[in-house]
């Protein structure tokens, strides 16, 4: 059963203070324990949207490890927190547990001692997501990939990061592809959703892998085709090439 056209959605995150501040690692622990899902999401998962060109190999992008590293100068805890985010970003419960475990590796006494100057406290924020359909719908896999190619990082973030996170790992855009019988695209979307790459890297990888899979599919189809079908496909390819050259004035 298919689910109808897939509508691309952007999202605006309206950011608000949640009311909690952390001046030391113990207060950070309490803050993480009490933070609502949107707050946890904002401080950990939303980083790639704020810096879409960053790759996951650089400095920690989440606010907790960045604060422990940059303000408290506690590099060991920063690494543990960063690993918790990168390794357990799939669901709220898993992530919260992993972050609390990272902080539990420091004794309570030490957590209280590792403190920031008052003006450098970590202020917990939360975000309200305002969904904004961008007016583009896809009816098949190629249209979806084409629409994603033209879409901004906010659209990628919403469909491949935010929706899966709030839906315990379910990737609705992949489910839609699956419902069309596009198992390969569904699998690529799910893999990229889980991989934790920066948004630009995610876009590059998905496009490259999708083109490769289409090419493999075409080669396999060609191998199984009759001589007449192959000849017809060759004529169509040449005609397409001529059209492209004519369109670009022969400059490519």
């Amino acid at each position, binding site marked *: 059963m298919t689910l109808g056209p897939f509508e691309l959605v952007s999202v*605006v995150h309206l950011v608000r203070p949640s009311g909690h501040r952390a001046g030391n690692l113990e207060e950070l622990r309490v803050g993480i324990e009490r933070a609502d899902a949107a707050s946890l999401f904002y401080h950990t998962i939303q980083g790639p949207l704020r810096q879409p060109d960053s790759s996951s190999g650089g400095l920690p992008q989440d606010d907790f490890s960045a604060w422990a590293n940059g303000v408290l100068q506690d590099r060991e805890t920063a690494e543990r927190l960063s690993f918790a985010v990168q390794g357990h970003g799939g669901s709220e419960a898993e992530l919260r547990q992993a972050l609390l475990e990272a902080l539990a590796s420091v004794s309570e006494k030490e957590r209280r001692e590792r403190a920031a100057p008052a*003006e450098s406290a970590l202020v917990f*924020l939360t975000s309200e997501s*305002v969904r904004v359909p961008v007016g583009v719908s896809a009816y098949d896999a190629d249209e979806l990939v084409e629409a994603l190619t033209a879409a901004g990082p906010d659209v990628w973030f919403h469909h491949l990061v935010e929706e899966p996170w709030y839906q315990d790992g379910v990737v609705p855009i992949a489910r839609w592809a699956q419902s069309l019988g596009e198992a390969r695209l569904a699998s690529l979307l799910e893999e990229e959703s889980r991989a934790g790459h920066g948004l630009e890297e995610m876009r590059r990888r998905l496009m490259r892998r999708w083109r490769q899979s289409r090419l493999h599919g075409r080669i396999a189809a060609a191998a199984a085709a009759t001589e007449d079908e192959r000849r017809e496909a060759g004529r169509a390819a040449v005609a397409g090439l001529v059209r492209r050259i004519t369109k670009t004035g022969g400059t490519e």
Partner: protein
Amino acid sequence: MTLVAVREDGPSLIDGYRASVGDGPLRALEALARRLRGHRVVMVNATATGGGVAEILHRLVRLMNELGVPTTWEVIPGDPRFYGITKTIHNTLHGWPGTLTEDDQAYFHEVNRRGAQALALDGDLVLIHDPQPAGLVLHRRQSRQHWVWRCHIDLSQAQLAVWDFLAPMVGAYDAAVFSHISFVPPLQVPAYLVPPSIDPLSDKNRELSDEEEAALLAPLQLSQRRPWVTQVSRFDRIKDPLGVIEAFLLTRKREDAQLVLAGGSADDDPEGAAVLAEVQEKAGKRADIAVRMLPPDAHLTINALQRRSTVVVQKSLREGFALTVSEALWKRRAVVASAVGGIPLQVIHERTGLLVRSVQGCSYQMTRLLRSPDLRKRLGAEGREHVRHNFLHPREARDYLAIFARLVEAAGG
């Protein structure tokens, strides 16, 4: 006249912004605007010229109208006494000394009461900018309206007595908007964080040809031989022009350069002339320090100054946001700026610019940038992309529309 006439001639802003930020952000903006069809917006502030807020409003109002959300802009009428009081409020909210007498407070309320009668505050959504017109909300006449207070000021060091005077007014709004988390005081209403933005299409930020640039700069009679280190800001103590001169004098011991201090004064700032005199006195007759007072409409000249500068400085002691930083970054300039207010949102240290906290630090980074073209190029390129994603008008308009949509939909509208 309280209604500000916004220029609506010339090419479409929407098309221009699409070229600057791409199709995706504009589609989102248009989709949000569709959700607000049938609603009217009124913006209110204290001045139609001078200062960053007026600049933003000139474009934002036009953009909202182009998007199909009818928007008007009103300016609260004031007089020298009112502006003196609001300047005290502005300074004390930034943490500077000063007091508001009971008479001052009563006069502030009186001007706001009169303003509420004079202004056309009949929108479904009313966005009030900064403290001067904050008291208008106490006279709201239609219960179905949504009122939002937009604070562009750094309140992190605000004098408690003055904030206590403003707080009951702010508490009467449906929501408040601040530029940075550290500016948010304790509030009973939802407080959203929305950084301000610059206009890539405005005279202050559009591309200039070499000929245009040379023609615009010629009247300023600046040295063509030395690299320029420039601060473009109002002549205001908060912008620390004297500190910039001190930092530059330290730099001059090691590098040849020219300091350019250029700026004007907002209509509602009675201290500008005094600060300019102090700056001129400190600069003395040195040939390597140029102080230039610019008229409020010298946008093209500022554009050319920033583009021609080797290093752009923003050594503020306090800041709301310092849009001059985003302006310089958009022009791929290397920026040295104080780590105050909203500047660290724009200048990510060693990635999009260099942050400093002292005269000495400022001098050190000026020198470093003057000596390294590669560093300037790298920071400038990253700075431009950072601004493209985060600090251009379409993003700010999008955030306001999202807040409005949220308020309207929460009220069942």
